[in-house]
């Protein structure tokens, strides 16, 4: 197939850029541990309240300024919905849904994950800056979806 010389140059530049880009993305995912949240843990969505760790949702200290925050999402709220942590804390969020699909987002950060019933999702984030953070549901979950939020204070 005939291809114009300049088009070949154009495509070669494009493909090389693409390979460089995908290598960066792959390196971040596999070598730097920045893969998107992909927890494979499963549970019965009708037995969330009896299943560990969701039988006791809340904040637990697990190390030096390291915490685990277990949260249960249901239309239209988070349990717990008011959380306080010290500045510099590293928090592992562990979440699930008892009903429909929800989203777990902390506005203005990269904390963002889908929460689907029957599955547990999780990710870790370090809070370097003080402030009132807003946790919100970013997946439509019904008529009260825009009320579904929680607050996280970093002191």
């Amino acid at each position, binding site marked *: *197939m*005939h*291809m114009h010389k*300049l*088009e070949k140059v*154009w*495509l070669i530049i*494009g*493909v090389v850029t*693409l390979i460089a*880009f*995908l290598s960066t*993305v*792959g390196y*971040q*995912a596999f070598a730097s541990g*920045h*893969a*998107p949240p*992909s*927890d*494979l843990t*499963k549970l*019965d*969505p*009708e037995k969330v309240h009896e299943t560990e760790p969701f039988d006791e949702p809340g904040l637990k200290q697990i190390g030096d300024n390291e915490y685990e925050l277990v949260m249960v999402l249901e*239309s239209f709220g988070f349990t717990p919905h008011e959380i306080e942590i010290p500045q510099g804390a590293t928090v592992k969020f562990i979440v699930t849904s008892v*009903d*429909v*699909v929800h*989203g777990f*987002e*902390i*506005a*203005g*950060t*990269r904390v*963002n*994950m*889908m*929460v*689907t*019933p*029957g*599955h547990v999702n999780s990710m870790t984030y370090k809070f370097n800056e003080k402030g*009132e*953070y*807003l946790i*919100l549901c*970013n*997946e*439509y*979950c*019904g*008529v*009260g*979806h*825009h*009320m579904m*939020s929680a607050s996280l204070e970093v002191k």
Partner: protein
Amino acid sequence: MNKLDSRLSMAHFYIAFTAIAIGGLFGLLQTLVRSEMITLPSSLNYYQILTAHGVLMAIVFTTFFIFGFLYASVVRTTGELSCGKRRAAWIGFWMMTVGMVLGVIIIMLGEATVLYTFYAPLEAHPLFYIALALIIVGTYFGSFAIIKQYNDWRKQHKGEKSPLIVFMAVATLVLWLIATIGVVATVVLQFIPWSIGWVDEINIALSRTLFWYFGHPLVYFWLLPAYMAWYVIVPKIIGGKIFSDSLARLAFLLFILFSIPVGFHHQLLEPGISHEWKFIQVVLTFAVIIPSLMTAFALFATFEMRGRSLGGKGLFGWVKKLPWKDVRFLAPFMGMAIFIPAGAGGIINASNQMNQVVHNTIWVTGHFHLTIGATVALTFFGISYWLIPHLKGRVLTKQLNGLAIYQSVLWVVGMLIMSGAMHFSGLLGNPRRTQVTTYFDHSVATSWGAYETAMAVGGSLLFISLILYLTLMINLSFFAPKGQEEFPIGEEADESIQPPAILENWKVWIGIAFALILFAYTIPIIDIIQNAPPGSKGFKFW
């Protein structure tokens, strides 16, 4: 064009225009609600009109417009449809129309406030899913008519290359047929039995995976007809030539290969799918950049060659020679120009990590209002300005052309304001698909207000532009002066070059497409089925 086939295309356009009229009004209402300029009457729920907006714009307007355009393109280049094919096309039209009317009624009755992505376990009335199935099965009848026309043409013209626009129409439908397997499977095998009550539970991860197997190629189903106009029609409008017939065909085939086995990039933040498989699909997603770069090169090569042949000098002198005052060129050109930032936004969305900042924020809404709402819509506007008068035996007069330019420029301005505000406030975390809220006066949420106002300004300009568009369409259908408006079909720069035969060997390309799909999906889907948690019963939270 013969009366019977014109009527077929026009029937599709009338439905498309009705859909964009109602859907556009609902879009305007959403921007006004979110910016706190109005409140909806208690009989209308925000999420209900959001559902209707999505279904009417993304499913009904696009699909009907595309079929109207594909029929006209095929008839223009291969002759009229036989009675049998035309009957199949009409059966398809009526199935789609019944599906659309039924779907809209169910939504307006408040029985399906599940948004147009209908994620389980929110459970709509079974008729909503049946309506969606009718629309899709209806398209199969139309696809049959067009593909049969192509096959018959090839039998009668052995050894000749098929008309480029027909090849592209068939490629678009091949993509559509392979893609809809996913949504038909989930709707027919999962949603319908579950919503009727034959089964109690639904596998959430499976339904989402099948949906997104369809959801991404769906956007290419919208885009490829726009590409048909860019590759084949725009060169003729500017008086130039198609840069390369073979490379255009190859680009369409690559879109079939690389737009389907990639749905996981919409599910990057989901549990239950390992991040290795997500990454594999991210890599396949980005392969689509190659045919996109080929398209960009071919189009700008056509423009430059034409501009230079008209005496354009220097590096960019040819730009001035292009017919900027012809809406048939200007509208699709503005669509192409917008596709450059829109495509860059798409790259961000599909990036394994950057997605985390923008996923499910209103940035994403801003993104697809640039791609489908601007790039595709502007190209479709450009097409309709000559195609409607062509089909109705009327002409686009100079005065109407002037109004049409005004309409498309206003659309661009409105969309840039609205979509720009969506992108910026999305970066601050403003979620998509959310009724106006301050989250109990949380300081983070109150800072989004100015952007919401900008969205309403953009939305209002878009609505004014839409009214002008519909007025022009009514005028071009029933009142414009009678005459012969051209259906422009471009010719190749060098007609002597025969495309390699492999480009029309569909078995090869469909075979590779399925091989890639099986590679990208088999193991994850087996895992999703075999290691599924207990399924979900339905919820009706509206």
